[in-house]
């Protein structure tokens, strides 16, 4: 088995807010991230898949196909969007705060089962170069 990682980038706006809490609680827990006008990041996504090398093609997956899947399932949905307002999994009522951890989990759910010939191994999301979250599909 071999691991293969493909990178993609998207830039999005977000803010942190738990509707079940008062405004004071939100400000205390989330600090500056609770600004409802939002703020943004250049995110870097690294998707790692695991699989066997095809003896004929020498590929685990066709990288061009993987690139297209990331573009279709993630980048086209997240890039230059406001995650809280424009992306279904983080919309009001879902209770899903668009933290780096939850973005990694949401991307895993978007990609799971959609990559032919390989198993999704890890989703890593960098919010900045000194902060990133990993999700391996653990419940």
């Amino acid at each position, binding site marked *: 088995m071999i691991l293969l990682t493909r990178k993609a980038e998207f830039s999005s706006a977000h803010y942190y807010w738990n509707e079940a809490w008062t405004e004071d609680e939100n400000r205390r827990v989330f600090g500056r991230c609770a600004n409802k006008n939002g703020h943004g990041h250049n995110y870097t996504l690294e998707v790692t898949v695991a699989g066997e090398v095809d003896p004929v093609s020498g590929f685990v997956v066709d990288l061009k196909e993987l690139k297209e899947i990331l573009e279709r399932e993630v980048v086209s949905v997240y890039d230059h969007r406001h995650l809280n307002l424009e992306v279904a999994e983080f919309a009001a009522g879902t209770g899903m705060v668009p933290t780096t*951890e939850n973005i990694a989990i949401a991307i895993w759910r978007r990609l799971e089962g959609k990559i032919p010939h390989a198993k999704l191994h*890890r989703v890593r999301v960098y919010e900045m170069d000194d902060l990133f*979250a990993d999700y391996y599909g653990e419940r």
Partner: protein
Amino acid sequence: MAAGVATSAGPKAYLSRRYRLSASHRLHTEAYSAEENRAVYGKCNNPHGHGHNYAVEVTLGGPVHAETGMVCDLGDLDEFARTHLLERFDGMNLNTLEEFRELVPTTENFTRMVHRIFQGFRGARVVRVRIEETGNNSFEIGDQFGRG
């Protein structure tokens, strides 16, 4: 997690934070002769020492709390790192510190020490510490999560 906020556990994820610090060191042990020290440690044995810009990557593992979407409060982690990592080691000569009085300040030993220090963080479990000594050398210790 911030005090007084009830939380419930969600899927398990890992959060990594990188801290930068600069310190000097000299690799030398009294257990070797001067000649042996030079042979083993080479230019790192220079009596005047030398320094690095270290990048310390700390990884926390745990359930993502449903209410906050977080593994732990980043402010708590940064505060812990400021007190127990940066104020203690940044801008220092590692050989002069009590911690390295009888321990050669290789980055292997430094990584083990930082990993042990972060076991004292109560916000979430620190599962891995990785230190880049230069862009070419890095050292890590911790769980072998995400096999392979």
